[in-house]
């Protein structure tokens, strides 16, 4: 077919109204029936945030701005998803306390899982419906979103690493005056820095010195090679050959570094395996003293280490500069935006770390049961005291914000493995979420009309959305599709009504007249699972 208007992933207005309206109605009714309205509200907010972030991650008009805002949304998305998951479980368990006996445990697990499924299903439905309106759930956007979430965490990781390193460095030494984990960490760090920069006097340290020298030589070689010296140096036939000299120096340093890297392990074996007195007696005294003096010189080692670090910094800066020059402004903005967003989140976390941690400690100490408070004081308080509020909260934020990365990667995996069809992914998630939430709500005692409406509604949401996608693809954006969409959706609703009527009739007929034993239920369950797996494989 000749298609003369651009293919749009957006749903037609009628289909969009059906999907959004029905989803909102069912989410509201199901969450009220399950008694998790607040948590569902948070879940719905997280779902909307994910859909918004996906849209922003692929926003062509202002791509750097979109990616920057999407990276900022990593915070709300992560906190929302974790709050929904952990909060629902905690509230469900709390409502069941205290236990009369362990016999209620299976029922409790089913209740907790069902409640969680209602909340997660509703959140997924809201996300899917929101994503389907603009068709943002596709491979390109999920790839972009997964990349954004991963890059957003990098500044937090960097800040956390720096804080952790500075904390550890500040406690390095012999550990005097410290207790417990602080003392052990301080002693380990002291041994490591001593081995590197402050060796034992009166003996040779050829291996470590060679290693540091090799690192410095290779680092300087790389830094000189990275700098545009040969490009800037004049090439004249009568003047000195500066380019040749630079290339010679680079080659010489690289070969020296390689040689020292070979020598270092050999020297290490000799120093460990042979007594120092034997080494001293095998060399002339003057040379031995010279080797001991040079290889044990702390200032020289520190200098070599700093040279290595500075060379790395230069090579990295030149590489970044070259990449930047070769890229367009838009491309640079796209790459840098998530790091900027991550840096802003890191600053925010550092700024609120102390008061937030203080409030949490106070809350746990004052409100938690005695046993929990004691465990907290015994295990967590020393860690907090040792690393400090900023370090702990930043590292915790890394773990929390990884949730958004997991969500993004999960969506991407679902699409690339083709478990979800790309064109109808949004409505499939919406319908599936409603179906799961309805099934879970039924186990929590939701009314029969609501359960039947939920099952029919989930199917209608998927059908209306998938049908709308084909309408938009084949009829374009200008054609009026309202009448066809309404006829189709009306027919689907009517069939759902027939199915619901049959179900009610079946319930009325079967109640009290059919009984099943537990022995029969288990094989039936296994058969269902096997059939489901086979069907899923066949459909895919």
């Amino acid at each position, binding site marked *: 077919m000749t298609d003369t208007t651009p293919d749009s992933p957006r749903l037609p207005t009628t289909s969009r109204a059906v999907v959004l309206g029905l989803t909102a109605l069912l989410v509201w009714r199901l969450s009220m029936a399950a008694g998790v309205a607040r948590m569902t509200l948070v879940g719905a907010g997280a779902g909307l945030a994910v859909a918004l972030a996906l849209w922003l991650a692929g926003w062509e008009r202002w791509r750097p701005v979109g990616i920057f805002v999407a990276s900022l949304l990593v915070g709300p998305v992560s906190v929302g998803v974790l709050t929904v998951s952990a909060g629902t479980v905690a509230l469900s368990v709390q409502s069941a306390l205290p236990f009369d006996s362990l016999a209620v445990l299976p029922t409790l697990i089913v209740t907790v899982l069902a409640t969680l499924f209602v909340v997660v299903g509703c959140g997924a439905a809201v996300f899917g419906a929101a994503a389907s309106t603009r068709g943002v759930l596709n491979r390109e956007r999920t790839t972009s979103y997964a990349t954004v979430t991963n890059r957003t965490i990098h500044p937090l990781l960097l800040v956390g690493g720096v804080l952790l390193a500075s904390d550890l460095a500040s406690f390095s030494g012999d550990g005097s005056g410290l207790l417990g984990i602080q003392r052990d960490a301080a002693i380990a760090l002291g041994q490591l820095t001593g081995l590197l920069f402050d060796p034992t006097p009166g003996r040779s340290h050829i291996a470590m010195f060679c290693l540091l020298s090799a690192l410095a030589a290779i680092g300087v070689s790389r830094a000189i090679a990275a700098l545009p010296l040969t490009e800037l140096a004049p090439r004249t036939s009568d003047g000195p050959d500066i380019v040749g000299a630079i290339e010679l120096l680079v080659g010489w340093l690289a070969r020296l570094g390689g040689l020292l890297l070979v020598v270092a392990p050999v020297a290490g074996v000799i120093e460990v395996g042979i007594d120092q007195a034997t080494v001293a007696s095998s060399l002339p005294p003057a040379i031995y003293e010279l080797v001991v003096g040079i290889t044990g010189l702390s200032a020289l080692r520190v200098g070599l280490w700093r040279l290595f670090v500075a060379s790395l910094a230069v090579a990295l800066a030149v590489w970044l500069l070259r990449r930047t020059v070769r890229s367009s402004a838009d491309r640079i903005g796209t790459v840098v935006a998530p790091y900027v967003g991550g840096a802003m989140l890191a600053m925010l976390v550092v700024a609120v770390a102390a008061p937030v941690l203080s409030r949490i400690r106070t809350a746990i100490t004052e409100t938690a049961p005695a046993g929990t408070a004691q465990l907290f004081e015994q295990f967590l308080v020393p860690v907090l005291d040792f690393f400090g509020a900023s370090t702990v909260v930043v590292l915790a934020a890394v773990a929390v914000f990884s949730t958004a990365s997991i969500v993004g990667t999960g969506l991407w995996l679902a699409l690339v493995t083709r478990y979800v069809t790309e064109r109808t992914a949004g409505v499939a998630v919406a319908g599936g979420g409603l179906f799961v939430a309805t099934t879970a709500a039924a186990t929590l005692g939701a009314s029969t009309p609501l*359960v039947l409406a939920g099952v029919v509604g989930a199917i209608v949401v998927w059908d209306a959305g998938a049908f709308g996608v084909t309408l938009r693809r084949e009829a374009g954006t200008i054609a009026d599709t309202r009448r066809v969409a309404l006829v189709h959706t009306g027919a689907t609703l009517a069939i759902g009504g027939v199915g619901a009527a049959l*179900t009610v009739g079946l319930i009325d007929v079967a109640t009290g007249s059919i009984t099943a034993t537990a022995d029969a239920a*288990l094989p039936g369950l296994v058969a269902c699972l096997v059939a489901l797996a086979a*069907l899923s494989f066949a459909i895919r």
Partner: protein
Amino acid sequence: MRRRVHRWAGGLAGALVLVGVALLVGEPRLLAAAVIPLTYVVYGSLSRVPADAALAASRSVTDAQPTPGEPVPVELTVRNTGVAAVTDLRLIDGVPDELAVIDGSPRACVSLRPGEAVTLNYALMAKRGSYTFDSPATRVRSLSASDTVTVDLTASGDTTLTCANTVSDVPLVDATLPRAGTLPTDTGGSGLEFHSTRSYQHGDPINRIDWRRYAKSGELTTVDYREEQAVRTVLVVDARPAARVTPEAGYPTGAELSAYAAERLLDALSVTGVVTSVAVVGLDAEDIPGGLGPDGLAWVDESDDHAAARAATVFDGVGRAANREETDDGAGDTVTTPYSSVETVADGGLAAEVAALLARLPPTAQVVVFSPLADSWASSLVESLTVRQYPTTLVSPDLARRDTVGTALFGLDRANRLKRAELSGATVIDWDLDNPIDAALRASLAELFRI
């Protein structure tokens, strides 16, 4: 073509999930609710497109012979001639690939009762050439959308759209060309207008000796008159890949518009008796039947056999080149590019084409260059011509919409090139596409032959 879509197969999975959960938690309502997805599975299996569905289509093109760049309204009517209702009919008219829809949509999605009809109204942007519509494609779905039938309808009515520059429509007949066919020069010799006097030289015609002066001073002097030479106008069309830019998809390219303007001017000059040649630069041998000349130019002289037909063939070749798909990545042979990605041709190419043109130009020629000025080739050519004392005119269709930064930059570049051509001494005609080319040429035709 009938196709079954297994879109309700997921209902089986839903039913199994409900049964499984019902068995797991002992919830009989879920077990019974498995009937609902199974109902949809049955619905999808039984639903069919009516076997007696029948459709008829007719198309009408309002203006069957438009000029390039003109919108052409098209109307397609599809009627349900069967006895059953068609609940989901999707149709797309077979718009020629080369033409762009600029208003309305050639697609529709409707439900039709028996005897009911739907009419699609849309407009196409006319381009030079003759284009045939494909059959309208229709797809009928069953109510459950699990059964589809796709057919191409045979549309009655108009099936082609022809856009040509008709010779009968002489556009510039009211334009008066001063002394058409002759070109006064700055050199003295025989003629009508006084130019200068000089000392008599042996062999000068006796009738040009200034006898009065001889009577007064006794010196023999000869009167020179401004020499007049036969005029030959050469129309040079820039059809290189760089000139095949377009403001939007489906719109005529700069090369096509240049060829169109050249063709209109050729018609006008033919009527007024000016000896005219046509040269098109940038075509491939495959674009013109018979290929190019040995110097790589498509050149038609008025003295050639069937010159008018050959000129039309050459102008058609410009349209063929514009419609040709991109063939060579390395040489910047980009077809119908948006002007944000115009690739300029290397200097070597410029020199070769200009050299070939200069070698073919008669010494008494006046040259009219047609180019969208997408790169500096045409302005460089104009400079080369004016340096060699060729009276030169540059006609440039303005393709810059100036609605984005990129198009504004394109417009700025073009304005600079126009200025450059003007400063070199050429006459510049800036063709605003909102006005007909005839108006621009009529306003400037007198300038065209100003010496």
